[in-house]
């Protein structure tokens, strides 16, 4: 990053450049040229649950505007790492970190950081679709309302834009006041993506977003990820290696808390440099 922002230099909602996304990150990135726009940088970053080390000394640069997949067997710490980026791990009292994690140049674990601002910039999509038991409109409007948008017209605009971006608008535009739990699983997940987009984040953290969905809904989500690529920095944790190969530009392979290999997806899947990676992607273990 060119400037060195102070830890609290987050723009409040509404002042940032209008959607879609920040123009700097909305360029169609040539993976090779993107090296200088690092969005998330971990330096010797470790996460502990009590004494157990869940992620150890990870060094990784995640590039702006690209889709980065994190793969690895169950329990390898990939979800833990993802959740540490927007500090969702704070919910677990025993969770501690060491090393440094920079988010848009800001130290995520700086004590002066307002975690709500961080989370506003880092939208998250969870493993199981988790819409609130409210109407579709209220689900999407929840975030903007939280960040101070009061005008009904503005909210309606945000809701429409977010649903359009999440490719859900056509399906729900006639029943925005219906309860979100009445939607199908795939629709619910796209609703959750729309809800995350509604607060105008820079980055989308997706924690196995399709693991609870059927193949049809999964491919809709994957299409959506491709559409969002370029507009948002996307980090997706997935069990499904075909999915990682299909949607991501970069892939990181985590094993037992350590980052084994990180590189362009094509290279990881065709020509991995490490034996472990090869074993995993060819299905010898995991």
């Amino acid at each position, binding site marked *: 990053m060119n400037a060195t922002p102070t830890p609290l230099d987050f723009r409040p909602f509404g002042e940032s450049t209008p959607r879609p996304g920040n123009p700097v990150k909305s360029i169609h990135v040539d993976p090779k040229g993107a090296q200088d726009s690092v969005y998330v940088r971990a330096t010797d970053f470790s996460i502990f649950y009590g004494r157990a080390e869940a992620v150890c000394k990870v060094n990784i640069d995640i590039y702006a505007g690209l889709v980065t997949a994190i793969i690895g067997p169950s329990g390898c710490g990939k979800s833990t790492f993802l959740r540490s980026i927007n500090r969702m791990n704070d919910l677990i009292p025993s969770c501690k970190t060491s090393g440094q994690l920079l988010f848009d140049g800001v130290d995520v674990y700086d004590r002066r950081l307002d975690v709500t601002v961080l989370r506003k910039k880092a939208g998250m999509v*969870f493993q199981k679709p988790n819409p*609130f*038991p409210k109407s579709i409109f209220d689900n999407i409007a*929840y975030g903007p309302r939280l960040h101070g948008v009061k005008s009904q017209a503005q909210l309606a605009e945000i809701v429409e834009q977010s649903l359009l971006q999440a490719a859900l608008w056509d399906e729900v535009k006639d029943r925005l006041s219906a309860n979100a739990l009445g939607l199908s699983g795939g629709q619910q997940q796209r609703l959750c993506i729309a809800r995350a987009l509604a607060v105008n984040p820079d980055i989308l953290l997706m924690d196995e977003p399709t693991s609870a969905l059927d193949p049809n809904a999964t491919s809709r989500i994957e299409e959506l990820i491709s559409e969002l690529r370029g507009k948002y920095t996307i980090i997706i944790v997935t069990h499904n290696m075909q999915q990682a190969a299909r949607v991501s530009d970069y892939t990181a392979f985590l094993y037992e808390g350590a980052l084994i290999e990180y590189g362009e997806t094509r290279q990881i899947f065709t020509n991995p440099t490490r034996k472990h990676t090869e074993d995993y992607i060819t299905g010898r273990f995991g």
Partner: protein
Amino acid sequence: MRISTRKLLDRSFSSVGVISIALMGLILLVILVPIFRKGIGALVFEATVEHRRLILDNFDHGDDLELAAEIKSAREARQPVYEMVQAFESRQQAKIDSLRPDLETLAERDDSMGRLVARRLKRLGPDEDFLEQVETIQQLVPRLREYGDGDDAPKEIAAISSGITRITSQTLAFAELKEVLYDLLGPAPGEPMPQLTRKQYGQTRWEKARETIDHLFFIERWDYSGPGMGTLVREPRVEQFRETEIEPLFAYVEGHAEAMLQPRWTLYWGFLTDKPLDSHIFGGIYPELIGTIYLTLGAILFAVPIGIIAAIYFTEYAKAGRLISFLRACVSTLAGVPSIVFGMFGLAFFLNVWQLPKGVLAGSLTLALLILPVIIRASEEAIRSVPHTYREAALSLGAGRWRTIVTVILPAALPGILTGIVISMGRAAGETAPIIFTAAASVAAPLSLNPLQAWDQPTAALSWNIYNLCTEHEAADEIRHVQFGMVAVLITVVLALNLFAIILRARIAKKLKG
């Protein structure tokens, strides 16, 4: 296990379940049906003309012209009774008067007897009340007998005393008859109006009137002459009045009771909206009803915010530790403390330390303490059962902890919290012990509907007055219908509250589920 055995077991399990539910329903019916059957009698009953007169006089309900016509025809039907009584009285009066010359001769004697009779004579005469005259001369009898045993007794003494005895024996029976008639019909026309409301009217309820008529026809007494327990003997009262003017009265009352009292099926809504008269013998239970509503809502008002905040603290903020487990144990213990202890605490703390007046506020606060543990427990459970994913979603969108609780967790926990509130509402409405010292009064003016005027007033309440009317009322036997009416109303209030909350909860749950 063989499939047939498994089927048999399945079937027997389900039949045990069905039987136990049916049993529970049956028990409920056995308890509730008689209460409601008797309680409904306070609202729906055959009211006599006396009842209509009473509520018109005291509460101004009813059509006064129609009632005037009714009263007129009832008077006409009663007139023969009064005439028979009158005729009997004047004949007895004539008998007393016939004794007068003899008594006057006796009064001329210059000894203690003469002076006594002279004094008594002043209280005899047509202006005096007939029954009082009888009493006056009756008291002479033992003295006369004593005097008659002496040596120089005049011959007329024996004649006088036997004459008096003849009069009095029948007159005592007549006095009893008059009392029963008074119970039935109220004061006779022209009689002075008594102070007590209960003496101003005859029987207002037809079933009570029929009991009174039975008393009129039969004298009941216990006969202990035989071996073992006494037996109840019913003697027709008419036997005492054979060949007097009263004799036809019984047949007349039997034939004309309905005309005299004009019973009619009535729905007396005033039972809920009128204030009681003459310590609940007449009138309604409005003060109790409004008092119970005030106390219950007051308790909820104080307990619910505190309870929910405490539950939020326990579930969302408190870190596991000794202090928290201790606090939790305290809450559980509080839930099991007998309610009278809360009542004593309310007296000691709210009245004596805080110097609150005995009234709605102090009572509500005491009840609030009583239901607080239930509300805390239910809210805690409800909040805990909100899926963790809701919390994560809200937090990931940048909501703070408090915003997450207010906008996501509490709405999702609302049905469970409501259940706790409903249970405790029923409890607060029914509790007696906590309000005895802090709010309850047996007789109190109905509370103002403005809480600012009502908060420091002691009040009647259904729970307390049910107890009070059943145990301490001077005529507890006479007002069973009021007692059962109150119980039925209390149960109905609690059931209605429950029903309301169940519907509310179902609607919210439906909204949450989509």
